[in-house]
């Protein structure tokens, strides 16, 4: 065996399992789901080709499609800036030279190691309308609290609040970015008379802009795919159908799951999955294009 062939052999020997795994468990199911999105497939009978009918039904007739799009977009638009802002603010605080800094960093990161489902259950009890902790506290002040988890007006804001507890990972990434900002730049700016805000605005932000961009991209994709939090919230609230009340927490991912595994409309669910894929692709592409204007890589 010559050197080149040997190299090829060893490459495939080590990369082979991953390639086979990707092809068998990712690529093939993706292509299969693309085909199914053009079929009527209720699992118990073979798929039947129906062209674009699934897509047409979603856009024109399905009562849950647009509400789930709306819920997901509203969640993303409100939650993402709040989550990024909270993570950055905490990272800035935890980057200060304070006593026990390592301890505080660990404390603030701790919530992130818990599954979102745990938050959904615990906060579900806190926000419960009848006898929940929040409403009991409000009642002490003579305030009649709202039906936080069972009102379509409040259920989504409650979920946004709950989701913010997952700030640990972006916070750690921000911390990493902040520690790479050269101290000399701050010292020079300080000597030139720059205040704290000016230093943050003109040094910190531009230099951590790649990290912000990374967190925005990951956060955006995560927000558009929210499932576990919404599902656990529904279970904790003993909703007969996930996504209630009145579809107020029917996230796109949850709706897709329901269509696929609750009601076995696999063709319809596949169409939904591909629409989500296309949407995330387009949004991420736009994100990258726009990032050229505000992300600085120092080159």
């Amino acid at each position, binding site marked *: 065996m010559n050197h080149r062939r040997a190299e090829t052999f060893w490459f495939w020997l080590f990369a082979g399992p991953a390639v086979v795994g990707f092809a068998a468990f990712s690529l093939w199911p993706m292509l299969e789901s693309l085909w199914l999105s053009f079929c009527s497939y*209720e699992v*118990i009978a073979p798929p039947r080709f129906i062209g674009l009918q699934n897509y047409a039904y979603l856009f024109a007739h399905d009562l849950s499609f647009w509400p789930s799009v709306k819920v997901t977009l509203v969640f993303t638009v409100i939650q993402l800036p709040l989550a990024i802002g909270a993570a950055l603010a905490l990272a800035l605080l935890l980057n200060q030279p304070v006593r026990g800094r390592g301890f505080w960093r660990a404390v603030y990161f701790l919530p992130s190691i818990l599954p979102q489902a745990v938050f959904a259950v615990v906060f579900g009890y806190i926000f419960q309308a*009848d006898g929940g902790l929040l409403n009991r506290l409000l009642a002490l002040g003579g305030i009649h609290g709202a039906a936080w988890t*069972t*009102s379509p007006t409040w259920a989504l804001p409650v979920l946004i609040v709950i989701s913010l507890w997952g700030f640990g990972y972006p916070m750690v990434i921000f911390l990493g970015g902040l520690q790479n900002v050269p101290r000399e730049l701050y010292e020079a700016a300080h000597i030139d008379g720059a205040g704290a805000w000016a230093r943050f605005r003109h040094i910190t932000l531009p230099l951590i802009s790649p990290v912000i961009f990374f967190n925005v991209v990951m956060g955006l994709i995560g927000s558009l795919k929210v499932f576990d939090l919404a599902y656990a919230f529904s279970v904790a609230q003993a909703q007969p159908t996930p996504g209630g009340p009145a579809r107020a927490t029917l996230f796109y991912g949850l709706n897709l799951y329901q269509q696929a595994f*609750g009601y076995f409309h696999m063709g319809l669910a596949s169409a939904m999955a591909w629409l989500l894929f296309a949407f995330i692709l387009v949004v991420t592409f736009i994100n990258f294009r726009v990032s050229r204007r505000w992300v600085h890589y120092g080159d």
Partner: protein
Amino acid sequence: MFSRYRDALLWFAFALLAAAGFWWAGRRHEPPATPGRAVISWYVIITPLRDLYMAEVAAFEKLNPEIEVQIFWVPGSEYNVKLKTLAAAHQLPDLFFSGDVWVSYLRPFSRDLTPLVQRDAAEFGLDDFFPEIRRAMQLDGKDYILPEYVNLSLLYYNRRMFAAAGLPEPTADWTWDDLVRAGQALTHEGQDGAPPVWGSSRVEGWWGEWLIYVRQAGGKAFSPDGHRCLLDSREAITGLRFYLEKSSKHHISAPAGFEPLNGFVNQRVAMIVGGHINYWVNYNQTLGLDWDVQLLPTGPASRSGGELAIAGYSISQESRHPEEAWALAKFLTRPEAIAAVVARGNLSVRRSVAETVMGAPGPHANPRHLAAAYRQFAFGEPIPHHPNYIEIMLTVVQPEIDRMLLGELTPEEAGRRAAAAVNAFLATFDPAKP
């Protein structure tokens, strides 16, 4: 020499390793059957009666040493999904727990039990089943379920709360007006910071209560052929309005979203319209809860309209041991087995057991009006047999009802929107539509 074939040998070894891995991952994990014994699989929902079923299976195996039963316990919330997945994979168990609400969907996979039922009718006492149960067993005149349980809508009430309010207990001739009057007398704000107590609960999130009112007002959810939703009819809207006005006008139920958690058990709700027989076990385990049942109050058009739903056993179309599975189904629904289920706090699907229990109520004092519960059989209505019934009711209709309760829609708007949405759904998904 070896180096010439090393490439090929290594590729072969690699392929062999991969094949072995796939074989190992995909092999069956069941232990081999004992020679001479038929092994039947049984899927059953995890239940507080688990010990009872284990004992039943042990007794069955002792009586039938040639049959081995493998029980698969499945959480109730996942049961339907697992069953559908197994059906799709042609891996259904020989015997599975089924119900009239699922039977339409599962019919292609369920064995037509009619020949077996007819053949063994005398042996297992077909005539012993209540006639209403017999009717609910059938789909298009064929038997697909051997029933074990029945759920029936009833009026549940807290005897202690009625006595404390100086009210007479509900009677069989109650109407909606009586329900409202008693409910108002029982509703009161909590004292010293205690939460309010409501005269009546309101079942939210599913059809358990509002469909009763729709039917008792003369309405229907679906046309008789199942191809059209009728929730926009004047009668249906009357029923929906009463459901809404329990809180908005009569103030006998909590506003939407404020229903007390387990209100009846926690004695913060005095009455339930509808309810579920499954909770009898919990009610009887709750210290200080003195409860009873009565016929549902009569609506403006009819007393009928409460739900009568059955659950029991179906046999897979593909079962290799249908006779053995049928033997187990018969064993689990024989009078002694039904009596054991009833003794834990359930209604009987068999007349003989019901008569025995009414004569000697057994360990539980409640409910006292067992006769009223059995009388309600005559006024119960089965769930419409439609393959997508649950999906339609929960995901298409219910959000409109929720919005009505929240004041976003009037009953007319909710009924109209729900009907239009269901009809659009049926036009797309209804496999029964010609």
